[in-house]
């Protein structure tokens, strides 16, 4: 089995803080803790390359470094990536996490080790199995044992059990497992336990939603620029950018004039997979009420109707995706001097 190991400048034996700006380099051998990893994993696994990069260089050149790591993972045909352990070193932890993410996106399993308060845990635990370690390198042996325990199971093709059982930070991913009792039986068992006041374990923790305070009201509507946008999937006819009908991975910005047959026309097509599109197809203003906004602009209710719109499909969309769309759209709108947005959902 072929392993690629990621280390920072310190564990990669280049130097301490003074070398934190050293660029990425690849050595075709095990280095530092990598040697102990090889020993622990036994004869079947070999570290074919060690990627070493300065913590500051990594965090300030993420694009270049990302490309280099991707190339190395391809070149050395890795079965598994091991990053760190980073203990409580913040910059190192973030770098280890980012490397795990690159591997994850290439379909390569990744293992790391960090202390629970390392910011890399929260930022990147989704992308790999991050073993829970002590907060400093005096406990290197235990950390490497934890990492190798996970690595051995992955390399032998085993499915890792839950985070609690295996000692990694919960990735927050969901998978299907097969159990003896069907859902109807489990529901009945759980309800009877609950009625009797006996212990039971829910199969799904409910999410906790972030609350946002709305922005203050616009003081001067007469000079405000107002946009309209929708998650109702009213795209230009023919769906030129192929927005997906469910679990949409993108949003698009379109000119109302050019893409929708005139600023107040909203002549588009519904590609939202969660409702009957007949009425939105017949009159797109039912989804994206551009006609009313043109009228209000003419009446001087507000200063200017923004001439572009943003569209996505809000149907089973992942919260992370939606939040990212929102952040990016808001930034672009701010740059364009938009003061307020009318959001329509379906």
């Amino acid at each position: 089995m072929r392993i690629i190991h990621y280390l920072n400048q310190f564990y990669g034996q280049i130097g301490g803080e003074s070398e934190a700006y050293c660029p990425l380099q690849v050595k075709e051998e095990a280095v530092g803790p990598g040697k102990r990893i090889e020993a622990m994993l036994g004869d079947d696994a070999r570290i074919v390359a060690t990627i070493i990069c300065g913590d500051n260089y990594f965090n300030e050149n993420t694009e270049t470094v990302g490309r280099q790591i991707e190339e190395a993972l391809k070149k050395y045909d890795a079965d598994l990536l091991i990053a760190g352990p980073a203990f409580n070193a913040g910059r190192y932890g973030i770098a280890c996490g980012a490397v795990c993410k690159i591997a994850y996106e290439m379909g390569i399993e990744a293992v790391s080790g960090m202390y629970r308060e390392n910011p890399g845990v929260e930022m990147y635990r989704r992308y790999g199995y991050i073993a829970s370690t002590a907060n400093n390198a005096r406990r290197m042996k235990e950390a490497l044992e934890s990492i190798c325990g996970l690595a051995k199971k992955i390399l032998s093709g085993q499915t890792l059990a839950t985070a609690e059982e295996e000692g990694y930070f919960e990735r927050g991913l969901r998978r299907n497992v097969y159990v003896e009792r069907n859902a109807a039986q489990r529901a009945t068992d759980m309800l009877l336990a609950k009625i009797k006041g006996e212990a039971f374990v829910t199969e799904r923790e409910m999410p906790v939603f972030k609350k946002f305070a709305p922005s203050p009201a616009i003081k001067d509507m007469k000079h405000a620029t107002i946009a309209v946008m929708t998650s109702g999937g009213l795209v230009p006819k023919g769906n030129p950018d192929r927005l997906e009908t469910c679990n949409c991975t993108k949003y698009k910005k379109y000119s109302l004039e050019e893409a929708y047959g005139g600023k107040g026309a909203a002549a588009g097509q519904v590609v939202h997979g969660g409702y009957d599109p007949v009425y939105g197809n017949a009159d797109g203003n039912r989804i994206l009420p551009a006609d009313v906004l043109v009228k209000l602009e003419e009446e001087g209710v507000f200063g200017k109707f923004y001439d572009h719109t943003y569209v996505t499909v809000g149907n089973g969309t992942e919260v992370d995706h939606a939040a990212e769309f929102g952040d990016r759209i808001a930034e672009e709108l701010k740059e364009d001097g938009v003061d307020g947005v009318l959001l329509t959902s379906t």
Partner: protein
Amino acid sequence: MNGLKLELEIVEIKDIAFDSTTAVRDHILYIDKEELINYLDDPRLQNMEVDLARPGESVRIIPVKDVIEPRIKDDGTGGSFPGFLGGYEGVGDGKTIVLRGCSVITTGKIVGFQEGIIDMSGPAARHCEFSELNNVVVKADPADGIEPSEHEAAIREAGLKAAHFLAKAGIGAGFDSVETYQLPEVSAELPRVAIMYMTIAQGLLHDNYVYGIDAKMLHPTLLHPNELLDGVLVNGTCVVAADKQTTYRHQNNALVRELYARHGVDLNFAGVIVVPVRPELKEKKRCCNGAVNLARTIRADGVIIPEEGGGNPEADLMMTCRACEKHGIKTVLIIALEDPLTDTTPEADAVIDVGNDDEVLTLPPVKKVLGYEEQVQLLSGAPENCIGDDGTIQVPLYVITGLHGSLIGSHVRGEVY
């Protein structure tokens, strides 16, 4: 007082074939295709075709509208699907003939995104209980000028009529077993358990029918579970394929079966409360609070609430859960959802998770397609470029018809790792 007693006379169907007359012989359902097509004649439909799809065959049915188990009262008066076909007397009572092991599947391009796939073999078949049935597939196009809503109604009725037509062949054909469903008095010590049967009633082709009445028009309704077994609930929804509670699922609900099996053992099955799921907040409040009042009226100690659909119905799910718990009625929710949930409540502390439906399957090309295969690109959940150059298609589990409804009876559990 005599409680309802329903005897299901089960006729096991092991194969289906076309023949010159419609009959059941030696566990084979023979179908006179001409006669069936004539029986289904409807001015709203054209190009009516009937095909057969058996387990293990290289057949794909797409896009699927509904799946229905053929059932009929033993005196031939209908009774199954009351409000559409049968009369209202004796529903949930007396004798009903069931052709088990077969179904009627309706197809049609009604709302492109929202009808799913049934494969009779291959990787999708492992996730679909309907792949194990001998299926009579009814395919028709709308007549010229027919709107989607009329098309939906016509296809829905054609499916029920086809099921009725086939079930008639079971009368007098001899049955293999009898299942008896009644709820005798049990010890007052046993906890009273009901099902809050969430039923989508959102309009825009997201509708279900109770005794033939559009559920949008209903206040929450208390049913005896036997009424479900006699086809009182008919699916008319065009929601995401996996979310769709097919009529077959209403007739064969795993939760109803489980509570029946445990009635008098460790619980007292107190009834089924149909809760219409409406999109408007005011109506949600009416339906959820009305349902909780019904649960209090029947003195339920606890309710199980399986969600139908996802997204908007979570508001109803959580509202019902909260109101029940407030009045001391314990709740367990059954959720079949990938991320995200759109609503939550602290009272939702007992949840059954029936798995992750965005797992992606690669389906090989099939020899025969019943329906319109190119529709796969439109299905809700199908990714961009889901049809490969080699004819394989890549789709998530949620394009499989009725996946979630089936999961209540399956052994899949979602796990976070």
